[in-house]
């Protein structure tokens, strides 16, 4: 009897864990997605920030060409 009760308790415990994991897994998925997107955004900013400034600057008028950037004058 005690063994059966303990088995039932174990099953209930596992069942509740299962239901809570399905609701907490959405939160976990959301956290994982935001972590992934933040990591990608960090890499994109790290490589793309200076080229972004250069492209914006070259497009503002008067338009400058690439050789004007590289020449020492």
């Amino acid at each position, binding site marked *: 009897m005690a063994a059966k009760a303990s088995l039932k308790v174990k099953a209930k415990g596992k069942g509740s864990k299962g239901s809570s994991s399905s609701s907490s897994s959405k939160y976990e998925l959301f956290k994982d997605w935001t972590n992934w997107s933040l990591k990608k955004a*960090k890499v994109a*900013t*790290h490589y793309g920030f*200076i080229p972004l*400034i250069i492209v*914006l*600057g070259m497009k*503002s008028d008067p338009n400058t060409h690439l050789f004007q950037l590289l020449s020492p004058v």
Partner: protein
Amino acid sequence: MADLFPPLATAQVDAKTKVDEKVDYSNLPCPVPYDEVHREAYMSLKAENFEGFRFDFSKGLNQKFSLSHSVMMGPTEVPSQSPDTTIKIPVAHYEFGANYFDPKLMLVGRVMTDGRLNARLKADLSDKLILKANAQLTGEPHMSHSVFNFDYMGKDYRAQLQLGNNALVGATYIQSVTPRLSLGGEVFWAGVPRKSGLGYAARYETDQMVASAQVASTGNVVMNYVQKISEKVSLATDFVYNYFSRDVVASVGYDYILRQSRIRGKVDSNGVTSALLEERLSMGLNFLLSAEIDHKKKDYKFGFGLTVG
């Protein structure tokens, strides 16, 4: 006898008109941002002293766009175990920078040879709301940090919300109470070392002087006073006290703005004397000399540099 009265009456009328310039409490000026409460004091007391050689070349391509190249060679301090000894390692690096200045958008980026990026962004989202972002990104994981600030400028107040990585949230608010006095407060919560903090600041300014004070729950009490002696000279003094660690530092500094040069220096109660000279050799060519002498720790730092453009 009758002659006595008219002068007295006029004197009273003069005094009354002076007092009668009543404060219009609905029309107070906008205060200085909370981060800049100590701005005038730190111009002379926290000058950018450096050690070694520095060369900055700035090339403007457009009205809005400019590139900068910067070379720095010199010893850099490395944090050591004991506070008495300083370990210095000679280091040389080159930094490339690009700036874009628009009335509504400002972008500044600096990248070093080891891949570290220092990025700043300032965008006017609307007439009163400004977004500022500041990020230091490195290739190493968990060593980058970034901070986003949303500033709202009201009629006689300013409010700021700050969000940073590692769950840092902060808010500041500063309000003009009289045309000369402004009071502000700040609150922040840092996620990684789980602590929160509270702080208050007050600033009183006139045309000739600025006095400001700040208290924080980290235990820091900062009080400073700046007096403008003339158009060219201003003196500043500063008192910092931490009531948890019982550290006290007092310093006195000066700032001379002359026609061709600007010299700032300070003397500290820790035995540190420092000075920074910026001399304009010709149009666009600046020569820098920096010296910082720490008598207690026997640490002597001298630097020279040239800025072009």
